[in-house]
């Protein structure tokens, strides 16, 4: 198991953000080259509830794509960087809850795997819920979910 000190040291990409800390950008570097990634926390119809969007930015067209699979050999580092955006966003938005899901079932699976992998390290900081058929339950490592909801512990 990865220890707390190890996740603190976990390698991640340098993050840039606008002043509102709602849009973050970083650059994935790997065999496929440099891929600009964007993370956006967008307000939903519910107070203090934001949707996490994550995708690649085409630097030539400016187009954002959240369905492409980069396969740039750095998924662990990318995941750690996305987790870092959560910390940064919630530092500014203390009461925020974050909703996250993949665009398809297969794209939701990496979210679950990532949460399962690091939950022991972030459990002191976040409450994490998994969406089941008719509601929510506290995230369990060995269970599939449709979506996830994260809330910073007070």
């Amino acid at each position, binding site marked *: 198991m990865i220890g707390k000190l190890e996740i603190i040291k976990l390698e*991640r990409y340098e993050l840039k953000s606008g002043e*509102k800390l709602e849009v973050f*950008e970083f650059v994935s570097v790997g065999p496929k080259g440099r891929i600009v990634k964007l993370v956006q926390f967008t307000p939903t119809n519910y107070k203090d509830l934001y949707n996490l969007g994550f995708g690649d930015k085409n630097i030539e067209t400016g187009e954002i794509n959240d369905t492409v699979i980069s396969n740039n050999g750095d998924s662990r580092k990318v995941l750690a960087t996305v987790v870092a955006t959560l*910390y940064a966003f919630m530092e500014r938005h203390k009461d925020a*809850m974050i909703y996250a899901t993949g665009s398809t079932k297969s794209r939701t699976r990496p979210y679950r795997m990532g949460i399962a992998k690091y939950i022991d390290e972030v459990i002191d900081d976040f409450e994490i819920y998994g*969406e089941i058929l008719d509601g929510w339950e506290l995230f369990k490592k060995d269970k599939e979910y449709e979506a996830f909801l994260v809330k910073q512990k007070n």
Partner: protein
Amino acid sequence: MMSVKEINTVQKPIVLIDKSLDFFNGKVLFPEKLSKANEMLKNIGLPKINESSEIENAHK
């Protein structure tokens, strides 16, 4: 011009403030995801936060 903003010290990241990213403020970059989120939340609502006193153990 960028300035360095230290959000926190240990676990929380250092974020470079890049005002060019403010261009995206108010724009929805992932509209399908947002729409899906609103739809699902309309149907199932929100979890009862802090309802359980056993949160520390419930994730296992």
